[in-house]
């Protein structure tokens, strides 16, 4: 009789795995079961087992809530703008950074522009809220130029663009790392040949640098597409106010307000589930394509 037998030598490995596996089970796997709430009229006092089952009613209700459509559209609009602007900015800055000849200057620039990435959105939000307030730095400067003060963060029409601008500012420096690494692998003889042919710096960039890092660009864009329903939760939460809900409210912030602040657990889980399912499909697809296009694997 051969029961399930763990070789003695491997036993230690299983013992090691107990703590992390348990933590993952409790805080990653058990919450997955929580999605049943989306199909219930969940009452915290009754719990999962005694709450009433309502099938797809919560999803049907979502369709009739006027906010929902706006929230989904805002999310898509903000996230896709961010993907485009941030990618383009990172590529451009990486290329220009690569053109800097002085090593010392280049190092210092890199050190400085990577920095904002490491500040939390509480800190950045605090700074931006102050800088863009009626009495803040930007309005002081605008005032010196003779403009009327603008309360930037209260203007719904401006809000999505401010989100894009501030996040691009925060992540561009750090985002260059991947592209810089790609640029350093380009064969220098290509540039030498181009110089012989009389190509200008600009022409070299267009005809050599960009085509050479094409795979990396496609890879990064493909991977980011999986996150098109993430419009930057912490950033939005830090910067928005009821005045800009119409253009700035995204799925995550809506779930937060509905679910945790107004205790609409079932409704919030329903849209959360919708978001997860769409994200899962997009992430799987983008990883699949990333693998196909550039043989990139995550594990």
């Amino acid at each position, binding site marked *: 009789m051969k029961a399930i037998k763990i070789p003695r030598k491997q036993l230690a490995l299983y013992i090691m795995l107990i703590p992390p596996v348990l933590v*993952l089970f409790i805080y*990653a796997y058990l919450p997955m079961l929580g999605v049943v709430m989306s199909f219930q009229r969940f009452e915290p006092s009754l719990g999962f087992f005694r709450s009433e089952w309502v099938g797809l009613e919560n999803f049907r209700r979502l369709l009739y809530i006027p906010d929902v459509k706006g929230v989904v559209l805002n999310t898509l609009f903000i996230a896709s703008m961010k993907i485009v602007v941030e990618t383009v900015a990172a590529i451009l800055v990486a290329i220009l950074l690569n*053109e800097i000849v002085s090593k010392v200057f280049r190092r210092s620039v890199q050190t400085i*522009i990577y920095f904002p990435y*490491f500040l939390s959105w509480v800190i950045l939000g605090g*700074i931006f809220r102050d800088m863009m307030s009626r*009495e803040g730095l930007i309005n002081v400067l605008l005032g010196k130029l003779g403009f009327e003060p603008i309360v930037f963060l209260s203007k719904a029409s401006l809000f999505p663009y401010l989100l894009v601008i501030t996040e691009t500012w925060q992540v561009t*420096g750090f985002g260059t790392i991947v592209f810089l690494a790609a640029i350093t692998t380009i064969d220098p003889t290509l540039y030498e040949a181009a110089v012989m042919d009389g190509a200008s710096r600009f022409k070299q960039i267009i005809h050599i640098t960009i085509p050479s890092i094409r795979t990396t660009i496609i890879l990064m864009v493909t991977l980011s597409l999986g996150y098109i329903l993430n419009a930057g939760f912490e950033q939005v939460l830090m910067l928005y106010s009821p005045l800009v809900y119409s253009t700035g409210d995204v799925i995550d912030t809506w779930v937060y307000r509905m679910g945790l602040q107004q205790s609409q657990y079932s409704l919030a889980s329903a849209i959360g589930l919708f978001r997860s399912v769409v994200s899962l499909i997009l*992430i799987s697809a983008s990883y699949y394509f990333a693998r196909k296009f550039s043989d990139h694997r995550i594990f």
Partner: protein
Amino acid sequence: MFTTINGLFFILFSLSCLVPMIYVLAVSLSSSTAVTAGEVILWPVNFTWKSYEYILNKGEYWRAMWISVLRVALGTGVSMMLTILMAYPLSKSKSSFKHQPVFAWYLIITMLFSGGLIPSFMMVKYTGLLDTIWALILPGAVSVFNVLLLSNFFRHIPKEIEESAFMDGAGHFKILLKLYLALSMPILATLIVFIAVGHWNAWFDGLIYMNDQTNYPLQSYLQTILVKSNSQVMTQAHAKLLSMVSDRTIKSAQVFIASIPILCVYPFLQKYFISGIMLGSVKE
């Protein structure tokens, strides 16, 4: 020509990254009247330490700071332990650890599926972690990215080292502690710094898992006072300070103090994160 314009562009870009921090510092060190009058740009006007004095005497700020420090210390320790315990078995090949693929998938799946905000919140609630520091530490303690990074590193440690240790009668625990950890100092340092910065910067979990605001870590506490519109920040006891400090100068001082730890670890961080980002450029 190109070089000059390029250089200028980067000087401006670098300045744009520095200006916000300098501005916050300048506002925090200026008198409230100068700030209100819009005289402060990048240099303190009517220099005063009063805002900082105010904060130094503010018990809640220090309490929140203490919780953050505790969180960083405990959270980094727990996270590192769990990460190491998971990464070592996963670094074994299928032939020396039969169920390696099972556990690898167990880990990967948590990255693809998640319960979302509400169910995660309820789980923390059911396990009785609400209002304890463990609510900020346990749920995110095992990061897929960190485990993959470390087990990849372990995989490149030569097999012979392990085999000879086995011959000498060492078990897996001993090999992990005495050999693997000693050989992976650089990557361990990277992870420690990344995890610590993550804990220091986190604020949303503090906001939702702490019902009692006195349990907020620093960043969560800051979030509430920065977003809540001012007015009641001052107490009567501080009324005599009113002429010198204002809501804005105090907020700025608090923001600045909260970012000092990042300013301090940044030089170390910078040494490591390039390799980190390259190994894991697929994070998120």
